[in-house]
């Protein structure tokens, strides 16, 4: 399923890819930070296809020894905030400096009727984990999420 949020030619977008028990998320963009933002959109779409209003902003920070582990940390930071705040997030901004990530998540409290959340991500995994620059110059960030 290709669920690109932006026209394909912009080389920015996200998609899900299959796993036996769970689901893969992949984001693409001109920089790793943009690819991370798009992958976060893919993570939200694992839970709901409903509109998520950007009512509240939440700041997160994480770090890791390499960019792939940093990607998993980023998704897990979102999963943590969703879990403890009972919120869903639909807009993301990421900055990466020397292995440190600063992110902003915009979202709203879960509305069970409107969002009809399909499942709850337990954690981002190292399975099918890949953050790399593709031959066309775009960055891609992907892994399987355990749901």
């Amino acid at each position, binding site marked *: *399923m290709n669920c690109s949020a932006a026209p394909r030619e912009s080389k920015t977008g996200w998609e*899900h*890819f*299959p*796993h*036996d*028990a*769970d*689901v893969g998320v992949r984001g693409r963009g001109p920089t790793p930070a943009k690819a991370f933002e798009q992958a976060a959109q893919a993570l939200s779409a694992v*839970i709901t*296809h409903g509109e998520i209003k950007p009512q509240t902003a939440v700041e997160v920070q994480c770090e*890791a*020894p390499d960019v792939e*582990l940093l990607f*998993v*940390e980023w998704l*897990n930071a979102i*999963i*943590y905030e*969703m*879990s*403890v705040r*009972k919120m869903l997030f639909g807009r993301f901004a990421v900055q990466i400096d020397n292995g440190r990530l600063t992110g902003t998540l915009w979202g709203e*409290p*879960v*509305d*069970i009727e409107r*969002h*009809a*959340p*399909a*499942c*709850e991500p*337990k*954690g*981002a*995994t*190292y*399975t099918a*984990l890949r953050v790399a620059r593709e031959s066309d110059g775009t960055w891609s960030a992907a892994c*399987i999420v*355990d*749901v």
Partner: protein
Amino acid sequence: MVSGLHRGRVTAAFAMDPARFTHVDRTTWRIEPYGAMRVPAIIYADADLIRDMDDKVYEQAVNVATLPGIVQASYAMPDAHWGYGFPIGGVAAFDPNRGGVVSAGGVGFDISCGVRTMLTGLSVSDIIPVQKELAESLFRQIPAGVGSRGAITLDAIEMDAMLSGGARWAIGRGWGQSRDLERIEEEGCMAGARPECVSDRAKERQRREMGTLGSGNHYLEIQAVAEIFHPSAANTFGIAKNDVVVTIHCGSRGLGHQIGTEFLKEMAVSAAAFGIKLPDRELACAPINSEVGQRYLGAMRAAINCALANREILGHYARRVFGHYFPNCDLRLLFDVSHNTCKVEPHAVGGKQRELFVHRKGATRAFGPGHASLPAALRDVGQPVLIGGSMGTGSYILVGEESSETKAFSSACHGAGRALSRHAALRQWSGRKIIDELAAEGILIRSPSMRGVAEEAPGAYKDVSAVVAAAEHAGLARRVARLRPMICIKG
């Protein structure tokens, strides 16, 4: 049976080639050691299940066989499918005295996810007149799905008491019954739990999660006993045809997920310092006799207690709802099993008893008759092994067999296992249609999410009957009864 809802055989995208194995017998497929493998890998399944298995199971079973200190073999159960590092349905034992490891990836994110079945003493004819009202009440009373809130909030002291006490803690707070304890693994309280090894973030994630079901493949079901295979074991278990039971499938919720997440990273980063070459970072592990290994074991055991307490509380909620409709009803716990764990157990290897750290990732402990840990009432027959199927096709109760000890450190399968991804299921089925078609078959589904129902469509799962038949043929566990769902509450 309604057409379209249930499927025939579904072949995985990259199906396994049976020719790659030494075919030992009808249900035993062996991969001889090659490359960095320290032991063979053995998959228990029939030829159809093997052909339908994703090739990733082969690769992951082989990868597990390369880990330090692994004993005897890397095993995969008949329901095995592509997991994280370990296959789901994977079993591996490690010896701490031979450099053995404990693996956060080998236990997984949903630590101590498991199943409990409670006997109601009611029959199908008692349920039918109130089936719809009962389904609505359970759906209202059992917090399920994303955004649901539990009625219990834990402060720091209660959190640590819960992490140390497990189901015993829940019972002490009035959410359960003391007689349940002997029917829960570890008698409801995992020894060696160290709440101080659980991070503040993991505790924060659990503060308001006790007594919640979660989502995905977790459920609470009212089931009818549809078929008895082993009359004497069924008699000992207290089940007869047309009896009604309550089955709950869930785990350690956000706390277990967070512990898994944090230790996976720590162990993936520290592995190289211990000289461990990880063929897959998801196999993140540390020597059992290392500081991080011991800290993980303390946290993981605390998460086991969290899962045991959570299922005890959910059982209490089910008792409350049943008590409303059937004032004289007495829900008795048949058994409570966990299928994502690492447990220290004595096992006979080459005629000698050794204390091993047995990882079961999507696999159920299955002690045979005479095992010392079983309560007196079950000791002669063996441990109930509870197998969750899909919401349309039913579940099974098995009993542990003595032969399972030599086959796979007393382990058996845990469920049907997925045949199709959520993705593929979503393309093929609509939640509304599944609910309507199952209702026509007398199965009431209640869920906050139609998409969630579609992703868990019965047709997305392997044939659970084929899985348990293979487990029985392989000598892992023997079939006692098949259960047919009547009500399913899904998160």
